[in-house]
């Protein structure tokens, strides 16, 4: 592998996005900020899928929009393909938009109802001067076929399609410019279960065929598992855990990750009855005035005094598994001894290493650990 190919495709360094809250009758004063994304450092390797998971208001969508430069970052830097794009102007950004495409959550709102399918998919090509005339038409029809629609659909309108088919049109549009990176913001959340699997399988096939890198956003840990190589969990603007996908399910370190895993009902009555899920109390606090230090301490069953005083650093437990927690779970003394503070840690975090505390509630029993199918 050449050094260039080994370098990550996207690097986010200490990325911050605050939205001002304005007040005042004559003069707009900024009275406060929504801390949407608060010091996030992440990388995306070429060809990998990074799952980004968190509940509403955790900043995952803002993070995506900032990577696409649809939002201006407040601080930090974004590097794409070795080039700093943090402050590129509109015209300099334009050629890069070919390389970064997005798939949206709502297939009903993301397609122009007055345009025909051929136009919807062809417009990116036209705007970027990629292909014209009969050549463009052929390219569009082969894209339609590739995403599981038929070339005859070229002249149809979006309302003639079901939700799953519309999402396929959205995918074809994202592929039209042969991008390197696709940011998929909850691409299957609005679809029926039986259709979700179809779209996920399509995205996976396309990835291996076209060398795509995905950023796949979801609000729970269910579907991301099936597409992701690595998963990052966000809570109130911060990354609380990053891990290789399977390891996150077998050995989550952050109590919030445990809560997310535990909250998903198991579609099996007996196994559901056999477990006592961890149900978090209360709501996600407001991102306008997030709790100090560890942002999860107000809902965490394992929170102690230090969690209210010091922001936990992102600690690297090896194998690319990072977690920001003073009292991690599924961790032994020797793991902590080997661990070190990761360079991805937020600038405001403390330097205290996590401690093992036997007296805290044990959360390991609350999650369904992946295991083989029992004999029927």
């Amino acid at each position, binding site marked *: 592998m050449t050094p260039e190919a080994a370098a990550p495709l996207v690097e986010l360094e200490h990325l911050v996005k605050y939205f001002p809250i304005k007040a005042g009758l004559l003069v707009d004063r900024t009275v406060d900020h929504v801390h949407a994304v608060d010091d996030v450092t992440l990388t995306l390797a070429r060809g990998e899928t990074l799952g980004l998971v968190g509940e*509403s208001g955790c900043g995952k969508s803002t993070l995506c929009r900032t990577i696409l430069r649809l939002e201006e970052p407040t601080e930090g830097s974004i590097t794409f393909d070795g080039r700093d794009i943090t402050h590129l102007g509109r015209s300099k950004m334009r050629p890069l938009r070919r390389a970064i495409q997005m798939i949206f959550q709502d297939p009903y709102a993301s397609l122009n109802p007055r345009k025909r399918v051929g136009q919807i998919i062809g417009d990116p090509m036209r705007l970027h001067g990629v292909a014209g005339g009969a050549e463009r038409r052929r390219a569009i029809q082969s894209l339609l076929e590739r995403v599981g629609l038929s070339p005859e659909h070229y002249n149809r309108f979006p309302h003639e399609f079901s939700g799953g088919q519309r999402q396929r049109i959205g995918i074809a549009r994202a592929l039209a410019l042969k991008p390197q990176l696709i940011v998929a913001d909850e691409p299957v959340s609005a679809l029926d279960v039986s259709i979700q699997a179809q779209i996920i399988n399509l995205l996976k096939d396309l990835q291996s065929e076209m060398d795509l890198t995905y950023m796949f956003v979801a609000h729970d840990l269910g579907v991301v598992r099936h597409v992701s190589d690595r998963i990052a969990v966000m809570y109130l603007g911060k990354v609380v855990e990053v891990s290789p996908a399977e390891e996150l399910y077998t050995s989550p370190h952050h109590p919030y990750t445990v809560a997310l895993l535990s909250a998903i009902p198991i579609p099996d009555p007996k196994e559901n009855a056999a477990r006592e899920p961890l149900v978090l109390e209360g709501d996600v606090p407001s991102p306008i005035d997030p709790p100090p230090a560890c942002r999860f301490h107000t809902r965490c069953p394992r929170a102690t005094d230090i969690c209210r005083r010091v922001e936990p650093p992102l600690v690297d437990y090896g194998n690319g598994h990072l977690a920001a927690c003073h009292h991690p779970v599924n961790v032994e003394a020797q793991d902590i001894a080997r661990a070190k503070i990761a360079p991805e840690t937020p600038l405001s975090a403390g330097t205290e290493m996590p401690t093992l505390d036997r007296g805290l509630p044990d959360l390991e029993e609350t999650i369904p650990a992946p295991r083989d199918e029992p004999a029927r």
Partner: protein
Amino acid sequence: MSAPLLSVSDLHVSFATEEGTVKAVDGVSFELDAGEILAIVGESGSGKSVTALTLMGLSRGPNAAIEGAVRLGDKDLVTASDDEMRRIRGERIAMVFQDPMTAMNPVYKVGDQIVEEIRAHEDTSKEDARRRAVEALRSVGIPNPERRYDNYPHEFSGGMRQRAMIALALALEPDVLIADEPTTALDVTIQAQILRLLEQLNQERGLAVILITHDLGVVAEVSDRSLVMYAGRVVEEGTLDDIFYDPQHPYTWGLLGSLTRLDRPRPRHLPSIPGAPPSLIAPPEGCHFRPRCPHEFAKCVKVPPLESRLAEHPDHCDRCWLEPEVKRERRVVEGRIGLVAGAE
């Protein structure tokens, strides 16, 4: 055996539209016993929400045609007059909707909306109604109900708003609560809280709940019995054990097979159900699931399957023409229940 609390028999609901008549509910029958949680599972367009709205008398309109019977005690909710329905709604049967953001009136205080409901049904003083509204808010786990009474819906979070919706539905202590996708719009950790609340209300008050959902995980977690609906028809009905461990209908196999399970190793390829649900204006003849079913045979085209019950399990019924022995054999795909193998 005592009579069921609610019984629906051969319910048909269709709507006249410009494109043709949409047969949203096509011969649905079921019974609900006191104190039980019955789940109705299905995808969009399966008719589960229209069934619920019809039970509430909310699907009536100039272009709607409703046939069949819905008996709640001595009343038939299909033939009851609008005035009678107005009394029955809230007092006997109540509903919680999917989207707590739009289900409440944004310009009235949350507490006042509950008071309005109580006073519309009962001749009681404002003070008494207010006291009961505060109690209703407290009983669904809203902290500081006296203070929250004076909040407007936008001052509540999504989870709190859904709790307030439940308080509103239960203020007059109905016998039946219909919850239409009550957790779909909520975050997973909040969903867990709301499901726990429904379970608690069911156990403490003996409230009968019809839970409408597309999520088999939610079904497994809270319900006692379940109906699986597809394209306007009930394709399978049974206890949780029946549906999850001995499913008879290929659509149920497909649903179970396409679930993403966190407690299993991840498959290389997710099994899915090929194709898409049919149009309800011109549904396929015979079995509605036929065009997507790899097991269809000549009989499926001719006649819509009749209810078949297993001899050993009279409460477990399904609508599929395959023989039970054949089903047992065909539903196992790659060692687990499914409709098709993992590869598309």
